C-alpha cells in the first residue's frame, strides 16, 4: 500500500490515529496536549468517521479528573475510549487510572509528556508526569519522533485490547508534540488490519449492561483485597509478549519494526546508554556518527516501559557491554536513583545474581538526568555521557546539559561538537509573533517536505510574553530523515525579521561559516552596515556571511498586508537559499497561500500573492566591508543601576542565554524578588500615548484602564518641579484639596505596548480637532529619549499620601501607585486593569493566590515579573499553586492570617503590662477600615516592635514575628473562568461557603484564554470556541447567581469599560465585607477575535445588550433592612446582535453555519431576556419584613 507522506506535528499524528480507532474521547485542555483534543473535536464537528464508519463522540469535561472519570464510565459501558493530557492533568487522572487498570480495561491515554510544577511551573517537556503515574497499573509506551508517535499510538490501541491493560502512550511535550516532521501517514486500512474486532466484541461483552448485570467497584476487606490484587498478575506477565506481537503485526502491515527495547549502535559496543523519548533520536544520530569513527557505543531505546520486561531489556544489550548509562528525563529528589535507572539496575543485577546475565562481566551502571523542562539534549551532551562512561571512575549519578556548580552533578561537554549532516540545510528565523513568521515557516516546511520531496523538520520556540513576543523557527531539510531533536546551533541560513533584535542579542551567533543572512531592514543596502552593532559586523566578516536585506514592511504595506511580512520574507528565503528552482518555489508558495487563506476569501489570497511577486525585486545583496566600523554594540539587557539579582540572573535570560546560568545562581526554592519588569525595557510599541495637559480634565480614566500600568499620575507641590527636565508637563491640579498643586501625567515610553485603550477611554475632545483627545497616540521612536528622561524624573517625585485619597473615586485612584506593572499580557488585555486596580487599592497589604492561567503567566513567568513593591518595600505577596486550587490556596492564607492575628492579639494581651496599656488597647481595638486607620496601625506595630526589641523575652520575640498580622491584610484568589466555572468550581464553592473573609476575582474571558480559546462553562451560547466549533449550544453558567444563594456571600458583576466607578465600588465593598466575596469581572480578550482597542466599547455593549448585567449583592445591607441585591445597570437597550457580531467568536458561525448561528442568536436573546426578568425581580424584592416579596 502506498501511504501519503505528510508534514505534521506529533499531536496531530497521534490524534489522527486515536480518533479513528475510538468511539468516545473525553477531553480537557492542557498544554502541550490541548491540540490533540482540539483535532478530535474539530473532526467530530466535521463529521469525520472512525474506522467503523461512525463519528466518535468527543466530550469536554470540567477538569482532567472529570475527563478520566468520564473515560472510565465510557469504558465500563463498552466504548473504545481515549483521552489526551499532560502534566498536572495526568496527576488529576491518577485516581481513575488506578480504577481503570484495576478493572483490566483496555484504553489508551495519549500524553505529551510535560514537566510537573514544583519550585515553578513549566509547560515544557520531560517525563516527570508519566513517571508519577507509573504505579497506576497502566502500561507505558514511549515514542520519540512524530513518526513513532503515530505508529506507537496505533500499537497501543491494538495492544490494549489484547492485553486488557490500559496504556499511557507518551511522547515528549513540545519536542515531539509540536515538532513538524514529514511522516508516512497510516491509513484506515492499516488501522482496520491492526484492530481485531473480536477483541472489541470481547471488550463490549465485559461491559456493564442491565441485560447481563454484574457488579464492579466493590469494597473489599483485609481478608481478600490483597489476594484479589494479585489476581491480575497473569495479564501483566503476558502483556510484554502481546505488545511485541502487536509490534510484529504492525511491521507486517506497515513495514516499520519496533521492539520492546530497540538497540542501535555497534554490535560489539562496550558503552551503552538506555533512554526513551525524543532524546533517543539525538542519541541515534550521535551514535551513528561516533560508531563510524570507531567508537564502540550504542543505545537501548525503551519502547515499553511498563510492564517492564527485564528479559527483553537484557536481550537488547550487546553481550560486550561493560558500562551502562541510564538516562532519565525526570527527577525524584531523595530517591536512590531515577525510575528507569532503578529498573535497569535491578534487572541487570538480579540477572547477575540469578546467573542468567547476558554479560560476560557485571556492567557498571550509572544514572543521569537530562532534558528537564525541554532543556536541550544535544549530540555534544550525548558524547559527553559516553566520554564519562569511559572514565575509570565515572560519576555514578550525574546531570547533563546544565552547570551544577553546587552539587557538582553535571558532566561537562564541548558545545562545539556537532553531528549535523552536511546534506541537511539548517535555517533559523527570528521573528515577532505578530509578523506571521511561524505560520510562513510552517508552510515552508510543508512545501519542502511535500513539494520539493525533502525530509523536513520544523521546531518553533516562542516567547513567554503574550505581547511583542519573539519567535524563533528552526527548520531543517535534506534528503534523509531528520532525527535532530535539538535546536539548530549551526545554521546555513539566518533570517532576522525584526531589525530591533540586532541590538538586543547576538542574532548571528548560530550562523555557520559561509551562511546566508537575510535581514528585514528599513535601511538600504548602502546604509544598513552603519546601523549594525559591532558584534553583528564582526560575525558577518569573520564567518564570511552572504548578506541580503529587504524592506519587508515596505513591501508588505504596498501589498496591503500591513505588518505581516511573512510572505515577503518566505519568498526571499526560497529565492536566496536556492533550495528549489525559483519558479517552482514561487508556484509552491502561491499554492500554499491559496490553501491556507483561500477559504477566508480571495482578497487575502490576492494580497499575499502580490507580496510574493513584489518581494524578489526589493531584495538586495549587501556588499560587506572588510572591517568592523560600528560605533555601538548590543545594548545591555538591563540598565547599569538595576539591582544585582537582575544583573546576575535576569540579564542572561533577556540576552537569550539563560541556559548558561549555573545552579548557584538559582533560587533554591523558587523564591524571586518582585518588581522586576521595570528593568526590562521592551520598547515594543510603535506608537505610545502623549498627554495634552491643556485640555485634560484629570479624570484618570486613561490611567485606570491602562492594562500595562504605564500611565501614571501624581500631584506635587509646584516648587517640587523646580528641577524638572525641560518641557516636563504639568497642569494645575483640579482637586479642591490639592488646589495649588501641580498635576502630572506621565507615560512610561519603553514599557507601553501601544494598545491605545487609554485613548478610547478619554472622554475629552479637542474643540479645534475633535479627532484628538487629551491623550493621543504618537510615534514612539522620535520621543523615546525625551520621554525616558521625563519618566525617570517622574519616578523620583513623591507619591501621594494614600490617606488623602478618596479610594472610591476614579479620579483619585489614578494617584495610587500600581503594584502590578508592565506585565507581558496581550496588548490591550482586559484582565490586567482589574489586577492593577486591586494592587493600587490594597497592594501594600495584599496576598494573592493566583490560579494557573493567563494571569499566572503574565503575573509570574520569567524572565521578569510585574508584581511590584512600594517605596516602603511593601507590596503584594504572590503565589501560584495550581489551576484548580486557587480558592483553597487563598483560604489557607486567610486561615493563617486570622490565626496569626489571633495569636498576636493573645500575645499583646499577655505582654500588655510591658508594652503599655494604651498601646496594647489601641493595637487591639484599631479601626482599620480606612487607609488612615491602617497607616495608624502600622505606626503602632512599628512602635510595638521597638518595645518588643527592648523587652527581649522569648514571648516578645515571638510577638515580634507575628506582629505584622495586627495590620489588616487582604487575600485575593484570582483566576479566569476556566478556574472559577470549571476546574476550580468545587473548591471555589467550598471557599465561599466557608464564611471566611476571602475575596475571589474571576476574570471572565468566557473561554480558556491561556491555552488557546477552549470552551468553558462561562462561554455564552452561540460563541465559537475550541471544543465548541459549532458554537456553544448551551447558555452561560450564572456563577454570580449561584453564589448569591448562600446569602452571606458578597457578589458583584462588574465591567470596567461599562462603568468604572461601579468597578471600584464593588471591589472596595468586596474587600471591606468581612466574609467571602466574589467579583466577576468582564474581561475582553484576544480570544474574542476583534481589535482590542475596542475592548472598552465592547464592555459597554455587553452591558447595554443585557449580556452582562452589572450588579452587587451585599449581604451587609440585609442588616440595614435593605435588599442586598442591587441591579446597577439599565434595562437592555441594545440588540444583542449589535454586541456579539462585533466579535469573530460569534460572527464566524454566521459565515460557516448561518442557520445555526441564527438559531443560537435567538436562544442567546432568550437567555438575556430571562436573566433580566429574574434580576429585575430580585432587585425589586422587599427586605426587612418577614415575607420578602417582589414589588411591582
Amino acid at each position, binding site marked *: 500500500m502506498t501511504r501519503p507522506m505528510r508534514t505534521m506535528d506529533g499531536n496531530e499524528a497521534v490524534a489522527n490515529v486515536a480518533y479513528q480507532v475510538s468511539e468516545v474521547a473525553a477531553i480537557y485542555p492542557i498544554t502541550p496536549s490541548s491540540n490533540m483534543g*482540539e483535532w478530535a473535536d474539530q473532526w467530530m464537528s466535521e463529521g469525520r468517521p472512525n474506522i467503523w464508519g461512525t463519528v466518535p463522540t468527543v466530550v469536554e469535561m470540567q477538569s482532567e479528573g472529570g475527563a478520566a472519570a468520564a473515560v472510565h464510565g465510557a469504558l465500563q459501558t463498552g466504548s473504545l475510549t481515549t483521552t489526551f493530557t499532560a502534566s498536572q492533568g495526568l496527576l488529576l487522572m491518577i485516581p481513575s487510572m488506578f480504577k481503570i487498570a484495576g478493572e483490566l480495561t483496555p484504553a489508551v491515554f495519549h500524553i505529551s509528556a510535560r514537566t510537573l510544577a514544583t519550585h515553578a511551573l513549566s509547560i515544557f517537556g520531560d517525563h516527570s508526569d508519566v513517571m508519577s503515574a507509573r504505579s497506576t497499573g497502566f502500561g507505558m509506551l514511549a515514542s520519540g519522533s512524530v513518526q513513532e508517535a503515530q505508529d506507537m499510538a496505533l500499537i497501543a490501541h491494538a495492544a490494549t485490547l489484547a492485553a486488557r491493560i490500559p496504556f499511557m502512550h507518551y511522547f515528549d511535550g513540545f519536542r515531539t508534540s509540536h515538532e513538524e516532521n514529514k511522516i508516512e501517514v497510516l491509513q484506515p486500512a492499516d488501522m482496520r488490519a491492526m484492530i481485531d474486532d473480536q477483541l472489541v466484541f470481547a471488550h463490549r461483552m465485559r461491559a456493564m449492561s442491565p441485560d447481563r448485570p454484574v457488579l464492579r467497584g466493590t469494597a473489599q476487606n483485609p481478608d481478600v483485597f490483597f489476594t484479589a490484587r494479585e489476581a491480575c498478575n497473569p495479564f501483566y506477565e503476558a502483556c510484554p509478549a502481546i505488545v511485541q506481537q502487536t509490534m510484529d503485526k504492525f511491521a507486517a502491515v506497515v513495514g516499520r519494526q519496533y521492539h520492546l527495547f530497540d538497540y542501535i549502535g555497534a554490535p560489539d559496543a562496550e558503552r551503552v546508554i538506555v533512554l526513551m523519548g525524543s532524546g533517543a533520536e539525538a542519541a541515534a544520530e550521535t551514535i551513528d556518527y561516533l560508531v563510524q569513527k570507531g567508537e564502540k557505543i550504542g543505545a537501548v531505546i525503551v519502547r515499553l516501559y511498563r510492564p517492564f520486561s527485564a528479559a527483553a531489556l537484557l536481550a537488547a544489550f550487546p553481550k560486550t557491554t561493560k558500562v551502562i548509562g541510564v538516562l532519565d528525563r525526570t527527577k525524584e529528589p531523595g530517591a536512590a536513583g531515577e525510575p528507569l535507572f532503578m529498573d535497569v539496575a535491578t534487572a541487570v543485577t538480579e540477572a547477575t545474581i540469578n546467573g542468567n546475565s547476558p554479560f560476560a562481566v557485571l556492567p557498571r551502571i550509572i544514572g543521569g538526568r537530562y532534558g528537564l523542562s525541554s532543556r536541550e539534549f544535544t549530540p555534544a551532551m550525548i558524547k559527553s555521557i559516553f566520554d564519562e562512561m569511559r572514565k575509570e571512575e565515572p560519576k555514578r549519578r550525574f546531570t547533563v546539559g546544565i552547570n551544577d556548580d553546587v552539587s557538582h552533578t553535571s558532566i561537562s561537554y564541548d558545545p562545539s561538537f556537532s553531528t549535523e549532516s552536511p546534506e541537511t540545510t539548517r535555517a533559523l528565523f527570528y521573528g515577532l*509573533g505578530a509578523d506571521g513568521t511561524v505560520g510562513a515557516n510552517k508552510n515552508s516546511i510543508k512545501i519542502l517536505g511535500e513539494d520539493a520531496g525533502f525530509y523536513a523538520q520544523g521546531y518553533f520556540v516562542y516567547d513567554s*510574553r503574550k505581547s511583542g513576543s519573539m519567535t524563533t523557527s528552526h527548520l531543517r531539510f535534506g534528503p534523509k530523515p531528520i532525527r535532530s531533536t535539538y535546536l539548530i546551533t549551526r545554521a546555513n541560513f539566518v533570517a532576522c525579521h525584526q531589525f530591533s533584535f540586532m541590538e538586543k542579542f547576538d542574532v548571528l551567533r548560530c550562523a555557520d561559516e559561509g551562511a546566508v543572512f537575510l535581514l528585514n531592514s528599513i535601511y538600504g543596502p548602502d546604509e544598513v552596515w552603519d546601523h549594525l552593532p559591532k558584534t553583528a559586523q564582526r560575525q558577518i566578516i569573520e564567518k564570511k556571511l552572504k548578506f541580503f536585506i529587504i524592506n519587508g514592511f515596505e513591501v508588505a504595506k504596498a501589498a496591503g498586508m500591513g505588518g505581516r511580512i511573512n510572505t515577503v520574507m518566505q519568498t526571499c528565503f526560497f529565492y536566496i537559499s536556492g533550495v528549489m528552482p525559483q519558479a517552482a518555489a514561487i508556484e509552491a508558495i502561491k499554492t500554499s497561500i491559496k490553501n491556507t487563506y483561500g477559504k477566508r476569501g480571495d482578497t487575502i489570497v490576492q494580497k499575499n500573492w502580490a507580496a510574493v511577486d513584489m518581494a524578489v525585486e526589493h531584495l538586495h545583496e549587501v556588499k560587506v566591508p572588510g572591517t568592523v566600523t560600528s560605533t555601538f554594540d548590543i545594548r545591555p539587557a538591563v540598565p547599569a543601576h538595576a539591582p544585582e539579582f537582575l544583573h546576575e540572573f535576569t540579564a542572561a535570560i533577556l540576552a537569550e542565554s539563560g541556559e548558561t546560568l549555573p545552579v548557584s545562581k538559582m533560587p533554591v526554592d523558587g523564591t524571586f524578588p518582585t518588581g522586576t519588569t521595570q528593568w526590562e525595557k521592551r520598547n515594543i510599541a510603535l506608537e505610545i500615548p502623549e498627554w495634552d495637559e491643556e485640555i485634560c480634565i484629570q479624570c484618570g480614566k486613561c490611567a485606570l484602564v491602562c492594562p500595562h500600568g504605564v500611565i501614571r499620575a501624581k500631584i506635587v507641590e509646584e516648587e517640587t518641579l523646580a528641577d524638572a527636565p525641560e518641557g516636563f508637563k504639568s497642569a494645575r491640579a483640579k482637586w479642591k484639596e490639592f488646589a495649588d498643586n501641580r498635576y502630572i501625567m506621565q507615560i512610561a515610553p519603553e514599557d507601553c505596548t501601544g494598545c491605545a485603550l487609554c485613548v478610547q477611554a478619554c472622554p475629552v475632545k479637542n474643540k479645534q480637532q*475633535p479627532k484628538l483627545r487629551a491623550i493621543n497616540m504618537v510615534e514612539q521612536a522620535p520621543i523615546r529619549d525625551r520621554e525616558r528622561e521625563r519618566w525617570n524624573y517622574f519616578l523620583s517625585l513623591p507619591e501621594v499620601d494614600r490617606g488623602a485619597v478618596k479610594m472610591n473615586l476614579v479620579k483619585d485612584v489614578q494617584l495610587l501607585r500600581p503594584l502590578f506593572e508592565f506585565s507581558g499580557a496581550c496588548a490591550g488585555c482586559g484582565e490586567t486593569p482589574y489586577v492593577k486596580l486591586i494592587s493600587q487599592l490594597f497592594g501594600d497589604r495584599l496576598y494573592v493566590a493566583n490560579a494557573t492561567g493567563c494571569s499566572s503567566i503574565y503575573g509570574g513567568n520569567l524572565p521578569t515579573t510585574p508584581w511590584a513593591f512600594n517605596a516602603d518595600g511593601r507590596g503584594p505577596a504572590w503565589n501560584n499553586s495550581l489551576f484548580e486550587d486557587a480558592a483553597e490556596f487563598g483560604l489557607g492564607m486567610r486561615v493563617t492570617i486570622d490565626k496569626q492575628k489571633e495569636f498576636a492579639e493573645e500575645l499583646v494581651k499577655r505582654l500588655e503590662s510591658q508594652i503599655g496599656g494604651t498601646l496594647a488597647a489601641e493595637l487591639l481595638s484599631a479601626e482599620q477600615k480606612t487607609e488612615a486607620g491602617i497607616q495608624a496601625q502600622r505606626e503602632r506595630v512599628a512602635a510595638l516592635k521597638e518595645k518588643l526589641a527592648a523587652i527581649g523575652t522569648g514571648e516578645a520575640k515571638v510577638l515580634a514575628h507575628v506582629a505584622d498580622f495586627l495590620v489588616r491584610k487582604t487575600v485575593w484568589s484570582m483566576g479566569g473562568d476556566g478556574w472559577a466555572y470549571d476546574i476550580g468550581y468545587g473548591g471555589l464553592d467550598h471557599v465561599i461557603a466557608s464564611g471566611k473573609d476571602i475575596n475571589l476575582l474571576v476574570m471572565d474571558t468566557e473561554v480558556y484564554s491561556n491555552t488557546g480559546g477552549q470552551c468553558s462553562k462561562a462561554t455564552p451560547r452561540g460563541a465559537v470556541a475550541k471544543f465548541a466549533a459549532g458554537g456553544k449550544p448551551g447558555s452561560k453558567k450564572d456563577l454570580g447567581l449561584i453564589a448569591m444563594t448562600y446569602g452571606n456571600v458578597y457578589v458583584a458583576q462588574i465591567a470596567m469599560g461599562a462603568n468604572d466607578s461601579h468597578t471600584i465600588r464593588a471591589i472596595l465593598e468586596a474587600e471591606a465585607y468581612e466574609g467571602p466575596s466574589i467579583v466577576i469581572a468582564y474581561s475582553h480578550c484576544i480570544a474574542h477575535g476583534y*481589535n482590542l482597542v475596542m475592548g472598552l466599547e465592547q464592555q459597554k455593549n455587553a452591558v447595554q445588550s443585557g449580556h452582562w448585567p452589572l450588579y452587587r449583592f451585599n449581604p451587609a445591607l440585609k442588616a440595614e433592612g435593605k435588599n442586598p441585591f442591587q441591579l446597577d445597570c439599565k434595562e437592555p437597550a441594545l440588540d444583542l446582535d449589535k454586541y456579539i457580531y462585533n466579535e469573530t467568536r460569534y460572527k*464566524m458561525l454566521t*459565515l460557516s453555519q448561518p442557520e445555526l448561528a441564527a438559531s443560537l442568536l435567538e436562544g442567546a436573546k432568550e437567555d438575556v431576556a430571562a436573566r433580566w426578568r429574574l434580576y429585575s425581580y430580585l432587585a425589586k424584592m422587599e427586605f426587612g419584613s418577614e415575607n420578602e416579596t417582589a414589588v411591582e
Partner: protein
Amino acid sequence: MDLRTNYLGMELKNPIVVSPSPLTENLDNMKKMEDAGAAAIVMHSLFEEQITFMSEDLNENLQQGTMSFSEALTFFPEEQDYKMGPDSYLEHIRKAKEMVNIPVIGSLNGVSVGGWQDIATKIEQAGADALELNVYYIPTNPEQDGPHVENLYLDLMREVKKAITIPVAVKIGPYFSSTANMVQKLDQAGADGLVMFNRFYQPDLDLDNLEVKPDLTLSSSWELRLALRWVAILYSRIQADMAITGGVHTGTDALKAMTAGAKVAMMTSAILRKGIDHINTVLAEMTQWMEAHEYESIAQMQGSLSQRNCPNPAAFERANYMKIITCYTPNA
C-alpha cells in the same frame, strides 16, 4: 385593468418593483412581496466592501495573536469553510428563485472594476433574471475630473456586460454635470436599464459629541420629482428602460412615474414604513385611479407626460424655473 409593463426585456404583471432593502434578506419577506403583488424584486445589494472587508476582517481577527505564545498558538477552531464574499448572497438568490415566481434582480453595489465580472457571472449562474449595478461613488478627490468619474461608471458597466447575458441596469445618482449626456453614454455602452436615482445618504453632524453621524432617512413622495423630471426629459431619447426609485409611496406616485416614461416604479421606503402589504394598496390605488379616469393599460399612459409628449415641455427646463421663482409668494 392591464397593468403589464416591460422592463429589461421581461414582461412584468405590473410596474411595481421592490427595490433593494434589508427586507429581502429574509426569504419569507420575498414570498410576502410576491403575494402582495410585487412584479419583481431587486435583491438587497451585495456590497463590494462587504466582500473585501469581510475577508480582511475575518483573516485579521483569526490570525490576531496567533503563533506567538506556546500555549495558545491559535484561538479559534479551524472551520471547514466560510461562506465568504458572494457565497451566501448567491445561495440566497438560488433559494429566492425557488420560492418566488416573479423575476429576481440581483444588485451589486460598488465602485471598482476588478472582481465584479466574476461575481456578476456567479449571480447570473445563481438564477438572477437581471442585474442592477449600483454605483455609489462620492468623488471627494479634487484632482479627479468629471470624465474620470464618468468613465468609472462606463468601464464598470462594460466589464459586467461582457461577462453576463442577463440584462443589466445601472442605478445612478443625479449629480453629473450633464445627467442627460451621462445617461446617453450609459445607454450607448449597452445598459439595458437605468434606475434613477440613487439616494446618497447625507450624514448629520452631532454637535454634542462633535461627531459626524451617519444617518438613514426614508424617502418621501416629494423626492419623486427629481426622478420624474429626468425620466420625462430622457423618455424616447434612449434605448434603455428607465426605472424610477426614491419617492414612490402611493399609487399616484407610481402612476406619475409611468406618465413620466418609466417602465417600472420601485419602492422601498413606503414598504419599510407601512409593511409589505402596502404594495397591494398601491396597486389598488393605481387600478382605482385608472378605472376612474378610463385608462385601459399602463402602456397607454407610459411617457404621456414626458417632455416629448406633454403639453408644456418647457416646464422641465430653465424657463419653468424662472416662472416659479418669479411667481413665488411667501406665506404670510
